[in-house]
């Protein structure tokens, strides 16, 4: 599998470590009133989609950046790769 790194071009998936669903970027508020339930959900529960999903890959053997990769879990086709940093900044800018 080749991951189209936004800065480095196509890189072998073996250079990366896998974390999982990109929803992990949305860490709940640890001081919020519903924190225990929110963290149970965050740490343990997964959508585990069969189809296109966005997920976090870490370029451990490369430039050590986190990527958000859009990938089809039924075919292993990779549709898009973005810097996780850009994804989070864009979300903040949109006020979410």
């Amino acid at each position, binding site marked *: *599998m080749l991951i189209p790194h936004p800065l480095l071009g196509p890189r072998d*998936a*073996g250079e990366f*470590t*896998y974390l*999982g669903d990109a929803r992990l970027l949305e860490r709940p508020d640890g001081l919020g009133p519903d924190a225990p*339930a929110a963290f*149970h*959900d965050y*740490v*343990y*529960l*997964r*959508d*585990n*989609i*069969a189809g296109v*999903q966005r*997920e976090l890959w870490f370029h451990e053997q490369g430039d050590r950046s986190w990527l958000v990769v859009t*990938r089809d*879990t*039924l*075919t*292993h086709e990779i549709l898009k790769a973005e810097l996780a940093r850009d994804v989070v900044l864009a979300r903040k800018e949109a006020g979410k």
Partner: protein
Amino acid sequence: MRFSGFRVFKEAVTGHKGWKPLWRNPEPKPAYDIVIVGGGGHGLATAYYLAKVFGQARVALLERGWLGSGNVGRNTTIIRSNYLLPGNQPFYEFSMTLWEGLEQDFNLNAMVSQRGILNLIHTDAQRDAYRRRGNAMILSGADAVLLNRDQVWAMAPFLNFDNARFPIKGGLLQPRAGTARHDGVAWGFARGADLAGVDIIQNCEVTGFRIEEGRVKGVETSRGYIGAGKVGVAVAGSSSRVMSKAGMRLPIESHGLQAFVTEGLKPTIPGVITFGAGHFYVSQSDKGGLVFGGDIETYKSYAQRGGLPVLEDVVEGGMALMPMIGRARLLRAWGGVADMSMDGSPIIDRTPVDGLYFNGGWSYGGFKATPASGYCFAHLLATDTPHETAKAMRLDRFERGYVIDEKGVGASPNLH
């Protein structure tokens, strides 16, 4: 139709004209007391024990494809009860005792072969850990023997004992562990369930649940609606897909797991040998092929196939452990979808929907559990109480902080 030596002889001299299909192919009825979803080993075993042990007369089992098309027909057939934690080990030992009587019980040769499993030791720390594990096994009623280097040598002289990084210093042996013919297990449970009155309905995909006021009423399927008093789901790699139809998110991620087999060779490997440090395990099938495997794919997948990096990693492990494997030719490689749970241990429990029960999270190791999983799930479905060996396998254990994490790696499904 019962199998016996006499029957085989009689058919041999009368031209094999008396054999009949092993199970019926019935049309679904409008409703059943209990509907099991998934015709893998666990679903079939559940249906079998529901009818045979728990006296349930109106049971149906619905399978999307054909029986045994999932992981029950794709695994490396290892059966063992060498776990450490009290939430797991008594359950797996219960399963081992069921394996020991299984073929007589369902009257089919499943080629259960107790040829032993040997976990190799390379360091003092590993020996301590395995000594502790062996003691935990013995406490649960299982068998375990700690071997030194010479005893391992006597069993498997072909291993590379002096590998610079992982020299072999001993091993933990469970003599009662071994292998079983995976397809035979599926067929035996299917035939036994059918004989006991269960309707096994193939090519019948469950596409949704009818839930009214928090209670399940039946299932929507590709062959129409089927009413049900209770529904038990045992769909392994498809767990999240199916349970999402009841609005549930599970502590499970699906990952690919590969296995490999070589051409047939003369008998060479005495039992099952695992090289945990090198992510490799191997046994020899009765046909002579070396059956081996290693780690799961690191990334999520529903593709029922794996990638080359894992193949490379597995054969490197094989070459490091037993260099002679380099002379064998690889015949086939295949993959299945493993339902990796967040602590690597299974779930057999009720769900927040009344009448809906879930069995899954078997990760890469549910074949050995097949008889006990079926027995315990049937116990839960029939009596609404957990079997005593499956009490810890609760769905809400993550929320309560009672995870059963054999490997101690936390909520990382790809690392268990």
